[in-house]
C-alpha cells in the first residue's frame, strides 16, 4: 500500500512531492508542512553524514512518512484556526528555489541595505504590480460594493414594514458575508495579506430569531458594510492616482522615443498655455524623469496596497 513508484531522491524532490500532495490546501498550512518537513529532513541528513540523500530519504519514508502520508496527516490536523489567521512567514523559500537553501531563510525578510537597490528593486517585486492592478480594479469593485450595500440596506429597511422584511434583510446580510470572503480572496492574491478562506464561526444553536440577532450584533457585519461603503471613494482615489501616475510617467518616458521617430511636432508640454518644451535637449531630463516616475509609481502602489491590506484585514476579519 505504501510503496509508491515515485520515491524522492533529493530533499527538494521530497518537498516538491509534498507540495503537490497538498495542492489547493490552505497556504499557511502548506507553508508550515513544508517548513517542518525540511527541518526534519535536513536534520536527518546531518545526523547521517556517511549516507547519501536517497538512502536517508528512503529511511525517512518509514519514520517521518512519505510525502502523501505527511500531506494526509496535516490535512487532518488543519483544525487549528488560530494558525490560519497567523501571518505567513516570509522566510520560507518558495517553489523550486529550495535547492540551495542551506543557509538562506533568516535574512530573506530584511530589506536590502542599499537605498538605491531598494528604490529600483521595486521593479522586481510582483507585489507592486499586483497592487497597481488592484488600484485600477478597485474602482469597479468599489462601485459595485457601494451600490450593493446602499441598495440592500435601504431595501431591507423599507421592507421592514412588510412580511418579507426580515427574510430579505437576512438574505442581504448573507450576501454581505459572502462578498467579504470574495474581497478577502482579491486582497490576499493581489495585496498578499493573509485573509480567511472560510466564513467566521457562526453559532448554529438557538432559534431563527437568535441567529438573526447574532448576525445583527456581530461587529463584523457592520465593519464589512462600512468597508463596502468606503470602497467607493477609496476606489475612485486609487484608480485616479494609478491612472494619473502611470500616464504621466509613461508619456514622459516615451516622449523621446516619439521624438526620435519623427513625431516631434506632436509633443507638447505646457502649463497654463505656456509652452515648456521646445528644445530637443529637454527630451533627456524628460526621459529620466519618466523612468524615475515609473519606479515611484510602483512604490506608491506597493505602499497603498500595504495600507489597504491592513485596513481590509481590520474591517473584514472578525475582531476576536
Amino acid at each position, binding site marked *: 500500500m505504501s510503496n509508491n513508484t515515485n520515491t524522492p531522491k533529493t530533499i527538494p524532490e521530497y518537498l516538491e512531492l509534498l507540495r503537490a500532495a497538498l495542492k489547493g490546501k490552505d497556504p499557511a498550512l502548506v507553508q508550515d*508542512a513544508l517548513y517542518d518537513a525540511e*527541518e526534519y529532513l535536513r*536534520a536527518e541528513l546531518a545526523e547521517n553524514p556517511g549516507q547519501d540523500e536517497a538512502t536517508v530519504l528512503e529511511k525517512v519514508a518509514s519514520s*517521518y*512518512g512519505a510525502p502523501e502520508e*505527511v500531506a494526509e*496527516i496535516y490535512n487532518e490536523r488543519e483544525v*487549528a484556526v488560530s494558525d490560519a489567521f497567523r501571518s505567513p512567514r516570509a522566510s520560507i523559500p518558495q517553489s523550486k528555489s529550495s535547492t540551495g537553501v*542551506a543557509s538562506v531563510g533568516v535574512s530573506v525578510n530584511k530589506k536590502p541595505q542599499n537605498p538605491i537597490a531598494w528604490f529600483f528593486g521595486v521593479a522586481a517585486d510582483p507585489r507592486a504590480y499586483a497592487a497597481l492592478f488592484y488600484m485600477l480594479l478597485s474602482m469597479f469593485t468599489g462601485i459595485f460594493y457601494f451600490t450593493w450595500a446602499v441598495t440592500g440596506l435601504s431595501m431591507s429597511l423599507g421592507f421592514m414594514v412588510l412580511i418579507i422584511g426580515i427574510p430579505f434583510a437576512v438574505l442581504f446580510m448573507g450576501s454581505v458575508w459572502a462578498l467579504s470572503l470574495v474581497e478577502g480572496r482579491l486582497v490576499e492574491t493581489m495585496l498578499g495579506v493573509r485573509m480567511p478562506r472560510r466564513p467566521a464561526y457562526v453559532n448554529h444553536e438557538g432559534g431563527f430569531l437568535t441567529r438573526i440577532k447574532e448576525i445583527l450584533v456581530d461587529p463584523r457585519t457592520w465593519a464589512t458594510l462600512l468597508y463596502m461603503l468606503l470602497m467607493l471613494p477609496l476606489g475612485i482615489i486609487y484608480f485616479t492616482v494609478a491612472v494619473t501616475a502611470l500616464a504621466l510617467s509613461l508619456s514622459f518616458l516615451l516622449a523621446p522615443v516619439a521624438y526620435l521617430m519623427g513625431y516631434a511636432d506632436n509633443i507638447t508640454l505646457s502649463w497654463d498655455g505656456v509652452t515648456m518644451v521646445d528644445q530637443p535637449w529637454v527630451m533627456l531630463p524628460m526621459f529620466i524623469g519618466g523612468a524615475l516616475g515609473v519606479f515611484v509609481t510602483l512604490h506608491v502602489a506597493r505602499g497603498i496596497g500595504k495600507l489597504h491590506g491592513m485596513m481590509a484585514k481590520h474591517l473584514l476579519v472578525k475582531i476576536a
Partner: protein
Amino acid sequence: MTDTEIHLKKFQKELSAGMVSLVLLSVLGQAKEPMYGYQIAKRFEGAGEAVLTGKQSALYPVLRNLSASGLLDSFVEPSVSGPPRRYYQITKDGRAVLSEWANTWNATRSFVDSILKGDSHE
C-alpha cells in the same frame, strides 16, 4: 489490509489523539534545555512510536498547537544544516497542565488495567 488491521489502525489513531500531547509535554518537561522538532521526534523512535504517532510528521502540528495554547514557548534559531529551527520549551502553565494530565493518565491507566485483567470482582 485485513479487517483486524483496520480496527487496530483506527484504535491507534483514537488513542494517540490525546496521548501525543501528554507525551510531548512530558518530554519537554524533562528536557534540560529547549529542543527542536527533529530532536523531539527522535525521542519517539522505538517502542511507543507506532501506537502514539504513526509517523513522526504528526508531531509537528501538535507542537504548534501546544505552543499556540501557551503550554509551550518557542523561539527560532538559525542552523547550519537547514532552515532556521524552532526550539520549544515548556512554560509555567505547561508544567501545571502536565501534572494534571499525568494524574488523569495514572488514574485512567489503573482503571483500564483493572478492567482488562478482569479482577474487579464485586
